[in-house]
């Protein structure tokens, strides 16, 4: 009975996405034209700003290194993000249960966000060594705050009628948490994770500046350092694009999981 309507809205949605992606492509074309125009107008040498074609050529020349870099950095970002979610959600649940704990510890979570990672990275390396684990730790430090703060906000949101409903049937703290507050906080978790998915890539790359040197661990941050040292602006820009690609992939994955596995809990906010 309802299927024609669903079909129609489905078609509308496809058309909507098509129009939307046209705009995205249009913006990209404008940016590339501007890019080329600036080089042409100011006669910039490639060391200042290589042309899109030169960047493309550098990417093709270095595709093996870039591919491995995307893989290494992507895995580090994903593992870091996963830890952030696990840790962040657990902390948020603890925070939501006690005002005292929240008051006592929340400032330190904020501290985590304000800590200049560039400054403490050498310390982290002293403690954890030049390895994948250190990259993950840096990523977690950067990703944790948006998740903790969003999920805590989600868990603390007052839904008095729903809370009364559960209390009426004798649900205690834990039952109200599992049956009500956690499901209601899922959209907040998605929101926090969405923010952190971009940060995860930044975290992993910054950590790679400190950890990787190409021999043991070669992420995009390592490649950027190397190409920077060799004055290879074209390859450097290619690596920057590769890192945005990782960020987009991660963001897209979060969106996809939100719209499929978690759809049950996120649908009503979309």
């Amino acid at each position: 009975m309802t299927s024609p309507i669903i079909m129609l809205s489905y078609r509308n949605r496809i058309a909507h996405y098509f129009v939307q992606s046209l705009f995205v492509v249009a913006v990209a074309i404008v940016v590339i034209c501007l890019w080329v125009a600036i080089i042409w107008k100011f006669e910039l040498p490639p060391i200042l700003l290589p042309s899109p074609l030169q960047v493309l050529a550098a990417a093709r020349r270095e595709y093996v290194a870039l591919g491995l870099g995307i893989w290494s950095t992507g895995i580090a970002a994903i593992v870091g993000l996963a830890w952030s979610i696990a840790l962040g959600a657990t902390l948020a649940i603890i925070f939501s249960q006690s005002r005292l704990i929240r008051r006592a510890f929340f400032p330190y979570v904020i501290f985590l966000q304000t800590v200049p990672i560039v400054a403490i990275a050498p310390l982290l390396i002293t403690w954890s060594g030049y390895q994948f684990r250190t990259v993950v730790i840096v990523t977690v430090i950067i990703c944790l705050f948006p998740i903790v703060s969003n999920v805590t906000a989600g868990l603390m949101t007052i839904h008095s009628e729903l809370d009364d409903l559960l209390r009426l049937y004798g649900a205690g703290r834990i039952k109200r948490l599992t049956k009500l507050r956690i499901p209601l906080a899922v959209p907040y978790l998605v929101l926090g994770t969405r923010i952190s998915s971009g940060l995860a890539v930044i975290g992993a790359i910054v950590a790679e500046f400190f950890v990787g040197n190409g021999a043991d661990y070669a992420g995009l941050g390592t490649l950027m350092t190397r190409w920077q040292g060799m004055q290879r602006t074209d390859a450097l820009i290619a690596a920057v694009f590769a890192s945005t690609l990782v960020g987009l992939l991660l963001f897209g994955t979060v969106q996809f999981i939100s719209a499929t596995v978690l759809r049950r809990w996120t649908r009503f906010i979309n």
Partner: protein
Amino acid sequence: MLAASEIRCESLALTFPDGFQAVENVNLRIPAGQITSLIGPSGCGKTSLLRLLAGLQLPTSGTVSLQPAVSASSGNISFVFQRPALLPWRTTIENVLLPLELVGGRPKSERQQIARQLLDDVGLSDALSKRPDELSGGMQMRVSIARALSTSPNVLLLDEPFAALDDMLRGQLGELLIQLWRKRRFTAVIVTHNVAEAILLSDEIVIMRRGRVATPIVNPLAQPRDGSIRRTAEFGEFYGVISDSLRADS
């Protein structure tokens, strides 16, 4: 399944921390197996009194007791809120099953059977696996009522349940409530500020003003009362009595 309890309030009072006296010295007996309306102007303490009856709020002094006595947390008292208050990630039937899950005690198959029967009774057999955002406001309210009845409560408390609906739906849901009540004969207390609704639905009407209740007024109009009763002289007369009482010394 035909159990119903009488509700007794003795010297019941509720003062909020800011000093506001929401309920003052209420002594009230709400008869078992009847529908009683609690009517009064906004801010008179109706909802607070209802929450005291539900045990969602502890009184500052006085007592609420049920006769026969039943444990509140085992689903013997149910509540229908102003808004449907459905869990948005649960389907219709999962929402109706929620109180049974929380109260426990029945095997899964029996719970399913109860929920299906109730959803059939409220006319939502087709919508078992829909989610709240796919239902209209009236349908959501039906789910909410079915959910409240899932534990076969002795007492059903309704806090302006139809206030957000248009007149048409209001009438339909009122009739639905009566049907359900006939079948189950629970004690019902409906908070409303709509006099006509109170007359149509209830056997007794309690007028509440500034935290205090007046003596219950027995509805002289015989059951069954349907919409057509509005045109009778008796309805008009009783409507006048209630309206006058509401206005008196205000």
